């Protein structure tokens, strides 16, 4: 029995070879002289759920569009199942599920009619899953989509995107118009899909608390570049918030700390709050050097995000 911790990079839990299901290689996309994506490289194997995070205009939607072949790369590649977005054929599209930021349905058709229309294209349509999701979302399929609330439309879009048992799922801000119980239902649906079909899932969102609760990997874009591509676990283990107080024999704190692993700092004479990265082993030496005591606390994703998107903000 292997005692190795973590995920074996060559196979996933069911021994699927980790084909790079969702991937990009040196992907660049420029609009005029504005670079929307600049040298983006990553790979998502099946069984992983990735949170795509970044500020407005960081390139998240452009990336998701390039993967589907809706935006032509200026350079590099964006691939699904190893096939470039622009070359995706029926075979690959049948294995893909997509939820767009804003879903459009034909307004005079009912939810039921839309689902029946969609399923007619997919021999693998899972009617039991459809029923489970419609129940979980409390979706009224007799309503015409034109009269549905934005939340209901979004729910319909999610059901439409996952009942053909896709192996790759892209979701662009799927939860923006959902209330908290529906967001819960969305994320538990994604976990159910992970257990049943083990797809690769990429979900973009600004709701970092939801993302933190739900994903196991973080891909963070800032100004079109990848600033973080890492397991959430490992980020949580490396980052910490330190509450730093001077020891009783030390009159005050230094006015600045120069340690390279400090990512942000608020310093007052009698106490400081630091965000540190990978500093566990340096703590004792830090305490001795500055005559301080350190209380280390876990750091939430929303706080890490500030560090990544302000260029370190020191």
């Amino acid at each position, binding site marked *: 029995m292997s005692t190795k911790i973590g995920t074996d990079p060559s196979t996933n839990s069911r021994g699927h070879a980790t084909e790079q299901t969702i991937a990009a290689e040196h992907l660049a996309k420029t609009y005029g002289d504005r670079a929307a994506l600049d040298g983006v490289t990553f790979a998502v194997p099946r069984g992983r759920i990735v949170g795509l995070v970044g500020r407005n205009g960081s390139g998240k939607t452009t990336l998701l569009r390039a993967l589907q072949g809706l935006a032509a790369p200026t350079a590099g590649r964006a691939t699904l199942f190893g096939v470039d977005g622009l070359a995706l054929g029926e075979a690959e599209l049948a294995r893909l599920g997509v939820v767009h930021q804003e879903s459009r349905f034909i307004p005079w058709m009912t939810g039921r009619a839309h689902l029946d229309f969609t399923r007619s294209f997919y021999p693998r349509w899972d009617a039991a899953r459809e029923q489970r999701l419609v129940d979980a979302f409390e979706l009224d399929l007799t309503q015409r989509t034109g009269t549905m609330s934005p939340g209901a439309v979004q729910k319909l879009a999610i059901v439409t995107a996952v009942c053909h048992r896709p192996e790759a799922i892209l979701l662009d801000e799927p939860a923006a118009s959902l209330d908290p119980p529906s967001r819960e239902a969305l994320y538990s649906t994604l976990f159910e899909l992970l257990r049943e079909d083990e797809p690769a899932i990429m979900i973009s969102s600004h709701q970092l608390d939801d993302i933190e609760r739900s994903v*196991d990997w973080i891909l963070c874009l800032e100004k079109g570049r990848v600033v973080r591509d890492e397991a959430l676990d490992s980020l949580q283990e490396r980052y910490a918030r330190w509450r730093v107080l001077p020891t009783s024999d030390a009159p005050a704190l230094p006015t600045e700390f120069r340690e390279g692993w400090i990512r942000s700092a608020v310093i007052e004479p009698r106490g400081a709050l630091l965000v540190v990265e990978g500093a566990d082993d340096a703590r004792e030496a830090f305490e001795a050097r500055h005559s301080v005591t350190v*209380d280390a606390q876990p750091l939430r994703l929303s706080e890490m995000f500030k560090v990544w998107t302000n260029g370190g903000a020191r």
Partner: protein
Amino acid sequence: MLITLERNSGVPVFRQICEQIRFQVAAGVLRAGTEIPSTRDLGERLGINPMTVSKAYALLEQEGVLERRPGLALMVRGAANGRAASAHREKQDELAQRELERLLRPAAIAARQLGVPAKDAIELFKRVLRAPGDEA
């Protein structure tokens, strides 16, 4: 098996699972030979990726808290009687001390930051031990 997760605590979920299983083994809630739910079942119950559960189980197996016997479900290591049973009790004691130490560490840091001398802190701990439910 009772596991509850704090999903926005900043503590990795696999660590939370490990800590709670260790605690329950140390406290005798999970006895030697108890079968542990499959990664799929626990993943479903907690609403998390089964791979996260695998990661926790792998770590506990490596620590000798859990054991996988060929053809059987993952279970709490040790046996109900014989030499394995006394080894299990030793393991339980070791785990109990380790868990308590982990839980005391934040209190120790607070004592230092508050400037409470070690002697007084120990007296306080003794008092709390005698009546853990009483507010000061």
